């Protein structure tokens, strides 16, 4: 199969406009007869479901949470980027496009990223119209802040709760369509498989998490907006329920998986405190606007932070990257923290932490200003650690946060299965090998409000004569039976170890060998380890209760079974990519001063993996990345 990204002709700045003007449409009378399934109700899913409903399509939306308002987009803190240039600092669509391509270390697709930058401004307008209470200046106009990897202020925010406010905006638009009966909502439902009929995605199998019953749902098209797979590492900033099942099942049915090894490790998270830890908590990147990162100059310095005089502190980001200082991109800040801790300069009892210090800013701006900007974040920090960041520097360490990889999609956001779309974090498309801060919210809403509802017309316009397919079709029966058998097999193991045991084991291997730094030898070792954990999982896991009732252990087991397969593919992908780029740091490939060393001659491609069957090696396809508008250079923030 030859990958066709279907990038429209024409100069980059005109592609989207021209394409929109020529895309086939579905007329309103026909939209009424077309059903679309949207899985996931985060920013990408809720905005898509709402918009498709407004357009007149019949939509079914699914989420595993008890309400669509709880999807994990809600936890995004810092902000959302848009090329509004309200700050009059020289921002433009081109600059946002360029920053995103460069920030992604030249491993994303130009046409998609440019479109993202173009629609970014409309997102802010839409959200304000919905009543999203962004931060404002005293003149009543919108305020902006800076984020990592850029030199303009283009980030719109609502305190440290921007994701919450944007999601509640999308949720309100979705709720409106549910009230109008344009959208039917299925909460506490988990998608377990996609149903393919005559080569097209035509529905899903979902499990009602309360009754345990399997359900069949038809759709002329299926949109996945199911988020990232960072929980493959067990400990991450993702919500406990975030999982890969929907996209992994789609992958096994024929959707190629793009760049699975591209994982974002966020530099500023609260460090691990013990074995009981269930998740990690992010401290927003926006804190690096006013916080300075440092470690002691002396190894194993056990003095309290406040007792270490100024001249004995190493502000290593400011030292190494004077142009961007504390606001270097995430991959660079994370590696720099790891480097210092590995070299013995870490702080705290575990020595695996660095300081994020606000004392300078508090002196300069006053405590009130800092409190207004970051009050809720400081509170979260104090609740978790019991320490007051107004008087003691925060201790932070990198943690798994976001996955740039995901299902491969073309310009229409369609996967390699016709009629199956992937939007938001669950596709691979816009962030290359490293995502810039405040760009995830932008992409989720761009895809859901402004891109997918239009591009999906290309597929659906050919389907206006297709009647709803009854769910007693043999393909529905087959898919349900497969899901049923998998559940029955899991329930029948009756081993001795809980699901979490295997999930933690997997997480340790992934973090150690496929985390912030990777090398060929370690990856080979890890592949075997993951296979072994998978084997013992299917022999030794225990799931109490039955499958015909509310059973949270069964839910976890189904998710972890898929993580155990995905983990191996991530390792394969990291092993294949003999270069360092963005968040993918192969220790064999680095510059003399420890920066990522790309190999554009051999690796300027998207890896798109094709599933070939259980226990068979996946086949790698390559989509070459062509850069016509940006010159490939060694990424520098010095």
């Amino acid at each position, binding site marked *: 199969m030859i990958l066709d990204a279907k990038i429209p002709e024409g100069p980059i700045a005109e592609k989207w406009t021209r394409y929109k003007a020529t895309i086939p449409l579905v007329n309103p009378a026909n939209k009424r007869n077309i059903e679309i399934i949207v899985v996931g109700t985060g920013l990408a899913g809720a905005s898509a479901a709402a918009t498709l409903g407004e357009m007149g399509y019949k939509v079914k939306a699914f989420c595993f949470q008890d309400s669509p*308002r709880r999807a994990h987009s809600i936890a995004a803190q810092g902000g959302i980027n848009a090329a509004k240039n309200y700050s009059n600092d020289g921002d433009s669509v081109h600059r946002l496009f360029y920053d995103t391509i460069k920030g992604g270390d030249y491993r994303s697709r130009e046409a998609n990223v440019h479109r993202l930058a173009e629609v970014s401004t409309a997102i802010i307008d839409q959200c*304000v119209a919905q*009543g999203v*209470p962004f931060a404002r200046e005293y003149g009543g106009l919108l305020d902006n802040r800076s984020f990592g990897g850029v030199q303009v202020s283009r980030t719109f925010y609502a305190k440290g709760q921007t994701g919450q406010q944007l999601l509640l905006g999308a949720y309100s*638009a979705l709720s409106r369509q549910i009230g109008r009966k344009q959208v039917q909502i299925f*909460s506490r439902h988990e998608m377990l498989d996609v149903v393919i009929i005559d080569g097209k995605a035509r529905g899903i199998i979902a499990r009602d998490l309360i009754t345990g019953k399997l359900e069949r749902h038809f759709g002329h098209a299926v949109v996945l907006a199911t988020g990232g797979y960072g929980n493959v590492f067990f400990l991450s900033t993702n919500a406990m329920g975030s999982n890969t099942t929907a996209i992994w099942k789609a992958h096994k049915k024929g959707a190629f998986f793009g760049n699975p090894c591209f994982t974002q490790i966020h530099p500023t998270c609260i460090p691990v405190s013990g074995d009981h830890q269930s998740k990690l908590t992010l401290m927003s990147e926006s804190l690096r606007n006013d916080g300075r990162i440092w470690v002691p100059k002396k190894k194993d310095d056990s003095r309290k932070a406040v007792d270490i005089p100024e001249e004995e502190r190493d502000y290593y980001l400011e030292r190494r990257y004077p142009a961007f200082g504390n606001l270097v991109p995430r991959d660079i800040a994370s590696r720099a923290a790891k480097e210092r801790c590995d070299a013995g300069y870490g702080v705290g009892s575990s020595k695996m932490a660095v300081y994020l210090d606000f004392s300078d800013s508090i002196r300069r701006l006053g405590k009130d200003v800092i409190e207004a900007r970051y009050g809720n974040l400081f509170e979260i920090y104090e609740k978790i650690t019991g320490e007051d960041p107004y008087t003691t520097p925060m201790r932070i360490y990198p943690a798994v946060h976001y996955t740039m990889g995901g299902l491969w999609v073309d310009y229409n956001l369609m996967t390699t299965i016709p009629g199956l779309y992937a939007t938001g974090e669950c596709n691979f498309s816009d962030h290359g090998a490293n995502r810039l801060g405040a760009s995830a919210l932008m992409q989720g809403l761009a895809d859901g409000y402004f891109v997918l509802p239009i591009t999906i017309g290309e597929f659906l316009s050919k389907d206006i004569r297709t009647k709803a397919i009854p769910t007693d079709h043999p393909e529905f029966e087959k898919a349900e039976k497969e899901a049923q058998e998998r559940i029955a097999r899991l329930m029948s193991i009756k081993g001795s170890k809980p699901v979490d045991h295997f999930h933690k084991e997997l997480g340790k291997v992934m973090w150690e060998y496929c985390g912030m730094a990777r090398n060929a030898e370690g990856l080979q070792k890890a592949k075997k380890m993951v296979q072994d954990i998978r084997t013992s999982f299917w022999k030794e896991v*225990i799931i*109490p209760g039955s499958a015909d009732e509310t059973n949270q252990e069964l839910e976890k087991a189904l998710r972890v079974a898929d993580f155990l397969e995905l983990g191996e593919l991530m390792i394969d992908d990291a092993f294949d990519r003999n270069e360092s780029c963005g968040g993918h740091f192969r220790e064999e490939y680095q510059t003399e001063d420890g920066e990522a060393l790309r190999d554009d001659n051999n690796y300027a491609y998207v890896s798109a993996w094709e599933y070939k069957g259980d226990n068979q090696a996946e086949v790698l396809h390559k989509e070459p990345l062509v850069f016509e508008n940006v010159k490939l250079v060694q990424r520098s923030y010095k």
Partner: protein
Amino acid sequence: MKITLKVWRQQNGKTPGNFNTYTLPDVSEDMSFLEMFDVLNDELIRKGEDPIAFDHDCREGICGMCSMYINGRAHGPLTGTTTCQLHMRHFNDGDTIVVEPWRASAFPIIKDLMVDRSAFDRVIQAGGFISVNTGNAVDANSIPIPKEDADKAFDAAACIGCGACVATCKNASAMLFVSAKVSQLALLPQGQPERHLRVKKMVEVMDEEGFGNCTNTGACEVECPKGISLDHIARMNRDYLVSNIVD
């Protein structure tokens, strides 16, 4: 720390429930309350017993999914804190802690500590939005909003929809939740065209769903993990009155 837990167990909405007692001999003070439940569940599963079902997701105090009634208080003893952000350092060695689900007839029990809060969604579906289709918006800065109003609207919009207000209210009233949304949109210029219709529709569905009446005891404000103020209830009452007069 040694902790004794008395936890409400109930197989499903149709069967009666009861308290079960569990003892945890070695709880770390750095654990969150939910991590303590993880440890207990791990133990139960290894013994082949049914683990305790409870709702949780983000574990950073923002998704609003966690919902435990701890020692007679929604989300436990700390103010401004969700259960997932409550740490064991706020308890003492030897404590006995009683854990129940949210109790309100509009929030039926699903299993153990899980309840069905979809009534909240239906209230929002009735009118908790501004009717603006995608693509209809004007430039964001063409609607200047005084900072003070924007900040007040934000404070109302910070509601996480957890239901602590309902759980803690002796009447199981949802006034704080409903008024937070009514108030957020009433404070903003974008919310004006539908202001009166919105409050009427939302209150109507709130009543249909079986939430109780408000008697201004203020318990909801005390227990709200996001500090949503009673002022919003006052604002909603005023808007509701005006909307009836306007008709």
